[in-house]
């Protein structure tokens, strides 16, 4: 697939000149004989919310783990603001400005909100923990994100509700000055009102110029927040484009059959070449 075509596929028409924050080029990942990813191209634009959907086993989690530095791709290239990069560990992803909010959230229930938000990146003064500074920064970040009901940042995370925990995990990513936040099924375990809260939070990240890669099985959620949509089918990106080019029915069809070649406007000839 040519670069121009990819731009047209993922970005807004008006932003085709803008450089993608992260570009995946021909990403493959094999687990022994299993081809989990079979050449994925994807552009993630700054300040945009990109949704990645696909059936169980399509390779969504595998894809984000290669971006997050959990494992390196078998083949293919990652471009960060146009420059080729390799991401060999979560630390390296962190240094680039990629933060991942895992589905299991990876929070310590026995620590409070501040301690969780700074875990692994504690602020020290004279080699000791600077609790005052950390607590202030945590409060600032939470209020920037308009998370108002977590009123005591010294509450243990184990005592928080699912939506609040999700907010803490997101705030942790934002506080690290992430430029790309990857979220693996952030609303899977949440009730109606808490889902709405988290979706609101995702929108707010976009408003702050942070790119979001959202993985979700819930198309209602996807259609309510995402700017663009990409569909993985058996390790291949079978369709991608602006969210306005899709409707739920069409998306479901592509997800389940992998058949449709792309947004209606682009016709069937955009079907990706076979391996």
């Amino acid at each position, binding site marked *: 697939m040519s670069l121009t075509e990819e731009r047209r596929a993922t970005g807004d028409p008006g932003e085709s000149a803008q450089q993608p924050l992260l570009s995946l080029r021909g990403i493959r990942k094999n687990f022994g004989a299993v081809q989990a990813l079979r050449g994925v191209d994807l552009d993630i634009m700054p300040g945009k919310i990109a949704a990645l959907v696909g059936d169980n086993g399509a390779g969504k989690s595998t894809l984000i783990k290669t971006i997050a530095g959990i494992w390196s791709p078998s083949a293919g290239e990652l471009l960060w603001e146009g420059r080729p990069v390799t991401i060999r560990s979560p630390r390296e992803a962190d240094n680039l400005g990629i933060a991942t909010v895992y589905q299991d959230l990876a929070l310590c229930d026995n620590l409070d909100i501040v*301690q969780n938000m700074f875990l692994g990146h504690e602020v020290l003064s004279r080699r000791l923990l600077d609790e005052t500074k950390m*607590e202030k920064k945590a409060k600032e*970040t939470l209020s920037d994100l308009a998370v108002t*009901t*977590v*009123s005591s940042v010294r509450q243990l995370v184990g005592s928080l509700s699912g939506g609040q925990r999700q907010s803490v995990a997101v705030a942790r990513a934002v506080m690290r000055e992430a430029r790309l936040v990857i979220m693996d099924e952030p609303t899977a375990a949440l009730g109606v009102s808490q889902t709405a809260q988290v979706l609101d939070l995702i929108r707010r990240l976009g408003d702050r110029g942070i790119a979001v890669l959202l993985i979700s099985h819930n198309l209602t959620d996807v259609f309510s927040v995402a700017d663009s949509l990409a569909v993985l089918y058996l390790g291949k990106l079978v369709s991608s484009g602006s969210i306005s080019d899709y409707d739920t029915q069409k998306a479901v069809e592509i997800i389940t059959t992998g058949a449709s070649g792309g947004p209606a406007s682009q016709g069937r000839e955009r079907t990706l070449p076979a391996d």
Partner: protein
Amino acid sequence: MAPPDTPPTAPIQLGEDGLTPEDLARPGTLGGIPMPESEPDSTFGQYLTAWAKRIRYGESGILPVVAGLIVLIIIFQVQDSVFLSAGNLTNLLVQGSVFVLLGMAEVWVLILGEIDLSVGYNAGVGAVITAILAGPPHNLPWWVAIMAGTAACATFGALWGVLVIRLRLPSFVVTLAGLLGLEGVVLYLVSTNGTGGTIRITNNVLLDITNGNLSPAAGWIVAVVAIVLFAVLTIARDLRRRRGGLVAPPMAITLVKVAFVAAATVALVLICNTNRGELITLEGVPYVVLIIAGFLVLYTFMLSRTRFGRYLYAIGGNAEAARRGGVSLGWNRLWAFTLTGFTGGAAGIIYASRLGSISNNIDGGTLVLYAVAAAVIGGASLFGGRGKMIYPVLGGLVIATIYNGMGLLGLAASYQYMVTALVLLAAVTIDALARRGRTST
């Protein structure tokens, strides 16, 4: 870091489902539940409410064990009025010091969700090596002997750590092997260096650890310095938080806390400074009390103020989360195992000091069970992530109280074991019940 163009979106309300937006928007509420700590100038009453909430969540802290200790003291005092005599209480403190220090040793690994079953015999190894080096024919200075003894124990602790971390063996099994192996080491060292299965301690400094006392005046000076330091540090911390615009406990709470610590310290010195000798004057705070207090302060500081301490709690709470945050699991766990060994060695030296010798019938198996019991009775969790150094101090005092009180009543060891077992069960039951409240809050 916030871009200036943050849009004026409505705040997200992360409350419970089913509450109206007005409920949620009310300041200082969490889903309609009042959140006292949200107000920078929270009052005494609000603070108590927040505290009660923490207790309901299962963070009852030291309350149950303090209450239990008081009950035990009342029972024993009613049964035998000698119990609360200055002589007996001082004796109890010295008796308890070994359990307390062994419990502190265990807390390092308990926080990680690991256990060290070898710590009792490791204590024996530390005691034997120290006794051998400080006695004839080596006659090394006491501090060299202590350093060598504790270093050996730290090495054994580190060895268990390496086996657990690198080979991913369960610490229960590794340290069970350690328990057996180190019992062998103790027997071997005693049989090759001692006479009649015993190595006598002849060094006066080593004997004085548990048998020597501060002069009464020195005891008061130490107490006053400690109280002033505690008060200044606690109040300075509150002031710093207020200056930073953060919530600080109300002044009244801080003063109550300081007053409580001051009263406890003064009571301790008063008791210890009472003449407990019969023929000769015997008074003053035993050195070992000071040593335990030193360990308590140092270890509490390490756990609460350093990154290392924070990482231990994180690893014990959710190791995968800590790893993804960039925490080195290996090194931090290795240090914890090493500290367990080191502290165990120190406890062994105190044990030998009290007996005046170390013999081949030291029961390291029972000692380690008391160590774990002390930590757990105090409030530490065997599942990791929760434990403070004050816990084994209180738990160790409970065990020493039972041991001492039942001894006064002339009850056989069989009863001591059974009562200790009941107390241990009671402690974990209270903890489990408190935690069950979690799901409902």
